């Protein structure tokens, strides 16, 4: 026996003597995980979170979350003797007088951007492949919670340095709080300990940023992963894969090495970005004062869509009975995001209601095989992208020499007109891809080789697909639409008639498909030409 094997055996024995976990541990160490690049998106989010914890802890050793006025006398000469808050001064100190401090700040900020991007792309993967279906609805909800908290956590994080840009962001957040009907002014005075900007807001959001929210994140991520573990990962359809199995590699050693290695790769790339790509150079913005601002003020990208919606809102306010309601803030800042996120959270339940499908699903959908869902996803994405583009309308205008008014009007109309068009086009593309799949299964792959028959005819040689490929392209279910409830013989309408009708209409749209070829069709064709 090699030494390493003996050591491993001793460790296993030591653990089992004290926990009796041998059975459980053996099962889990050989647990199978399916392999696909798109399953690494969620991993990136997880690893970025760990990087955020590590780099964030480093920053807390020097950061002083205080809004007390101090006179700066650090090594950054242009701001020498300038009056500023202690949080801004300590951020300058980290950036210029702590070795590796700027690097850690930039790693922290890049990791936050990557964290949010990975969450969003992971969410899109889960949505478009139908991984949220029964039994994984709870994990979908946790994911939406993590996304929402991530946006808040990111905003609080970049607000901490109290520079001119982030202070402007807090000013806007204050205006949103202030816009709440009835209680707005009170909420604002409670949050800021008096008039904006006050002296307590940054210390308060600091503790939320470094303790409260990371704690909630840790809890939610743990449950998220435990559910993935317990329910076993979904897999893409393919030869040998069914609803009743998981095909992949065992945790030990392959997944430990791959996933562990991937953590280091993500960390390495983030560190490289932190080393070479300057981000949030707060010393260029100066300390916050409410009377100043920098042109091209932009939030971080995951807030951009929200800012874009606020920018394009029409100037609506209601003045009645001595009170003011700012629709120009409430609609884009609270009501629309509320509807979007609630709709997103409820989607698994809505889809299962429409399709009447209450079974477990472990095989993922190819997006083309669920045209309605794919089109809905593309439509929502186009909505967000237009909103995001308008969030950068000033930068777009200066870079591409466009008028800001033109961009604003374009996005105002575009937000309403483009998403339905995207829906229709995406659905048609999905159906065309289904048709292409059908074609290639029945007639084989076009090889591009032309053959002349003795009679002088030219034919292109088609190559039959492998059984594996044929299976992958035809294995999907094609459920029929639910029937609308009909009147009975006496002409009485069934209960919930309208609801039933809506459901039937949506179900019909949802079930629109190009029929997958059957082996009978394939045989008939073989008997015919070719």
């Amino acid at each position, binding site marked *: 026996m090699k030494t390493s094997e003996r050591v491993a055996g001793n460790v296993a024995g030591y653990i089992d003597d004290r926990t009796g976990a041998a059975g459980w541990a053996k099962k889990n160490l050989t647990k199978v995980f399916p392999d696909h690049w798109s399953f690494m998106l969620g991993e990136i989010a997880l690893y970025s979170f760990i990087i955020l914890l590590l780099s964030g802890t480093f920053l807390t050793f020097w950061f002083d979350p205080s809004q007390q006025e101090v006179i700066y006398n650090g090594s950054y000469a242009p701001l020498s003797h300038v009056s500023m808050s202690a949080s801004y001064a300590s951020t300058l100190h980290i950036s210029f007088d702590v070795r590796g401090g700027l690097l850690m700040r930039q790693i922290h900020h890049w990791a936050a951007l990557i964290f949010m991007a990975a969450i969003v792309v992971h969410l899109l993967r889960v949505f478009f492949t139908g991984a949220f279906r029964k039994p994984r609805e709870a994990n979908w909800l946790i994911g939406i919670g993590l996304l929402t908290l991530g946006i808040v956590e990111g905003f609080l994080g970049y607000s901490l340095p109290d520079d001119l840009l982030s202070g402007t962001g807090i000013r806007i957040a204050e205006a949103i709080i202030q816009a709440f009907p009835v209680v707005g002014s009170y909420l604002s005075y409670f949050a800021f300990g008096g008039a904006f900007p006050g002296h307590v807001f940054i210390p308060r959001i600091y503790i939320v940023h470094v303790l409260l929210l990371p704690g909630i994140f840790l809890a939610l991520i743990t449950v998220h992963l435990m559910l993935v573990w317990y329910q076993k990962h979904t897999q893409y359809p393919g030869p040998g894969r069914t609803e009743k199995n998981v095909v992949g*590699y065992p945790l030990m050693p392959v997944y430990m090495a791959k996933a562990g290695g991937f953590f280091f790769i993500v960390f390495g790339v983030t560190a490289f970005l932190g080393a070479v790509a300057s981000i949030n150079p707060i010393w260029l913005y100066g300390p916050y004062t409410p009377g100043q601002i920098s042109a091209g003020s932009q939030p971080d990208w995951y807030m951009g869509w929200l800012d874009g919606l606020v920018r394009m809102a029409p100037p609506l306010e209601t003045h009645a009975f001595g009170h003011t309601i700012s629709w*120009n803030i409430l609609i884009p800042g609270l009501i629309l995001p509320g509807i979007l996120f609630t709709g997103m959270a409820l989607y698994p339940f809505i889809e299962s209601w429409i399709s009447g499908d209450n079974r477990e699903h472990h095989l993922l959908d190819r997006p083309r095989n669920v045209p309605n869902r794919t089109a809905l996803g593309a439509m929502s994405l186009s909505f967000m992208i237009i909103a995001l583009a308008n969030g950068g309308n000033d930068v777009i205008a200066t870079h591409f020499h466009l008028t800001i008014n033109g961009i604003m009007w374009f996005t105002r109309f575009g937000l309403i007109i483009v998403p339905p068009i995207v829906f229709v086009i995406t659905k048609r593309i999905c159906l065309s891809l289904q048709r292409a799949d059908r074609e290639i299964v029945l007639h084989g792959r076009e090889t591009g080789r032309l053959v002349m028959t003795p009679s002088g005819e030219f034919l292109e040689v088609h190559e039959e697909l492998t059984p594996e490929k044929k299976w992958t392209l035809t294995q999907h279910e094609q459920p029929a639409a639910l029937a609308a409830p009909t009147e009975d013989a006496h002409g009485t309408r069934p209960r919930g008639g309208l609801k039933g009708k809506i459901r039937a209409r949506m179900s019909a749209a949802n079930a629109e498909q190009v029929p997958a070829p059957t082996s009978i069709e394939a045989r008939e064709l073989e008997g015919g030409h070719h």
Partner: protein
Amino acid sequence: MSNEIKPFENPGLPEHAHRKSDVDAIAANRAERQVAILFLLSAVGTIGTIASYIFIDSKKFIFLPILGDTNAQQLALGTGLAASLFFIGIAAVHWAKTLMPDNEVIAERHEFRSSDADREDFVATVKERAGAAGLGRRSLIKRSMGVALGLIGLSPLVLLRDLGPLPKNEFATTNWAAGVRLVTDPGNRPIKPSDLEIGAVAQVLPALPEGTERTLENIGKDAVLLIRIRPEEFNLDAQRLSWTHNGIIAFSKICSHMGCAVALYEQQTKHLLCPCHQSTFDVTRAAKVIFGPAARPLPQLALTLDADGYLVAKQGFTEPVGPSFWERNSA
């Protein structure tokens, strides 16, 4: 037509294709060496990181193409750290891909729903246990518990009351009042009309009584933008015209939309633009909103001259400055 019968047979897992390192000992040894080199590259990265911490001057800036002026130590620390991490990752993945078993394994999956018997048993137990608590029968307990649990959330809310003072009328008040001098920011100097040329713009604040310190909270409400144009360019009603002085007009600098500083002034068009959400205000028409999400003009400050010829406020703002709030009662 639910397609329960699949059109084609599931052909099962494709046959395992051996990698070169599975069948060729030389290839396997080569892969081992590659993994070792990658791990060693990581070690080099760590040594480089430590060396740059000790030996590179932390104040030295170097110029690099694309990156521009860069702190040499931060750059070296970062690239060293990146290499030390990245190569560990690549080494582990390469190890897994070339030398660890790559046979795909099939694990069974079972439906989560338990057998009908277990399920019925479970449901029956839940019903029985819930019944044992007697919640359904003892409605007095149910209701009183509802009251208790419903109220308990109020205590933390009340306890949070001391987070801040009540706003009272403070959203509507500023330090501007009749006779208060306009002073420059920065500089704190009073201003005469002759200090401003046509086309000029300046940020001003109210002169505070001797010994009063100016706070950011003050600036957040008091900041005013002073603009001078040719008097004949004004398109104002008689009252608003009387608030100007010889082509000099003053507006609150705090955006009526979300409170950003309305700092972009276009001299040619005489438009004020807020950089946050691009609300655009026409200076010649009392800061009327001509574009963007703001619903109200910027409040105008009435100007006049004091006995010494300095610009002063004729009166305080006649409406609250800044973003809207529930208690605000003017359009």
